């Protein structure tokens, strides 16, 4: 193995390109779950991941994928750490990630609410989510929960198509 292959920047680039198991149009870097990639003095690559939701079933798969990709790329010692703090927020989805979501028919998230006690709001809120298909703002939520923890179900009244929305969290 040539020495340049252990370049820490290269390790970072490789980890950044691993696709998300449930939203494969996004890389783990696009999703904001890859928190850091560092190389220790003995050459171990330490990649830190954070779960989107506590019950996210894709965490084991993400860890395995990052580890496998790095080892395939010639890094014999790889360690994956879990970071819980600070908790993941949909604000960490990168601009490129948001563009890719929209291109695949998934509306990207609005800005997440800021910290402090969460108030319960019972009056209907008019949250503007643009249809990723036709761009219309005439849309409505059909369910706040969908096929994966991180998404809600919406429908567009203009083009009549249902679509998914990545929840702001």
């Amino acid at each position, binding site marked *: 193995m040539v020495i340049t292959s252990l370049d820490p920047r290269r390790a970072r680039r490789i980890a950044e390109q691993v696709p998300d198991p449930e939203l494969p149009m996004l890389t783990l870097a696009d999703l904001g779950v890859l928190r850091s990639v560092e190389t220790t003095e003995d050459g171990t690559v330490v990649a830190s991941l954070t*779960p989107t939701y506590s019950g996210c079933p894709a965490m084991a798969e993400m860890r395995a994928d990052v580890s496998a990709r790095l080892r395939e790329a010639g890094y014999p010692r790889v360690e994956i750490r879990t970071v819980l703090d*600070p908790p993941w927020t949909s604000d960490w989805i990168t601009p490129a990630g948001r563009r890719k979501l929209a291109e695949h028919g998934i509306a990207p998230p609005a800005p997440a609410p800021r910290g402090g006690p969460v108030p319960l709001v019972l009056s209907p809120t008019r949250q503007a989510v643009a249809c990723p298909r036709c761009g219309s703002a005439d849309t409505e939520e059909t369910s706040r929960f969908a096929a994966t923890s991180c998404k809600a179900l919406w429908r567009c009244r203009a083009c009549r198509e249902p679509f998914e929305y990545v929840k702001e969290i």
Partner: protein
Amino acid sequence: MSDDHVYLTLAEGHDDDARWAYGTGFEDPLHGVDTTVPEGLDAGELAAVCVALADDALISAQRLAEWITRAPELEEEVALANIGLDLLGQARLLYSRAGQVDGTGRDEDAYAYFRGADDFRNVRLAELPNGDFAFSVVRLLLLASWRLAHFERLASHPDPVLAAIAAKGVKELSYHRQYAAEWAVRLGDGTDESHRRMRKALEQVAPYLGELFTAYDVRDEVVAVLKQVTEAAGLPMPVYRPLPGSGRHGEHTQHLAPLLAELQGVARAHPEATW
């Protein structure tokens, strides 16, 4: 296993028997998290807090999962399953933390699968049968409101792992409470029949309210939410009539043992199983 590909690991090294059909060792949810307990913290107390909160979440998740194939609409089924999945995730993190700090080194499965009903510390409200959709909505509203208020406080707990689990949970629980509150208003302010069922559900949960408030004091926040929702729904506030005993002391209803029998059956039949 370490970080090997999960499916490759599944396929190899299991020629001896069929034990990998279910099992442990699949993934430690706190894998690679710094597990040090800060000095000055009572480890036994910290573990007890983690176990009680994990038990609430695990038992609630099990009841929510029972709605799958039975919910009134597909969207509600997906919602209840998602809420259960969030709670199961919280339970796994909390059990793992408990095992790290209580000195036993137990993993999450030891807590979930190999304790009897007397060792569970969940509130009895969590273990009551699902009843109708109104009862499940009222129960979820109470448990989610209590847990959200409590987690908001725990986010500044001196144990950094518990604080991080709580801070993460707050985001999830606010969605759970919102879901339950919206349904409570829709049903309470709906038809005569849905209103009647909501009234009945509030009467049914009333004896279990006190148990929520004994261990950790977030009573005011929860009562405020309940008041806000019942007013919007045109429903009366439940009348507080405490029952003797507490699930927090291991005193449970007759409904917990059958729930655990179903939850633990496979694990106990194959206690050495691994993925």
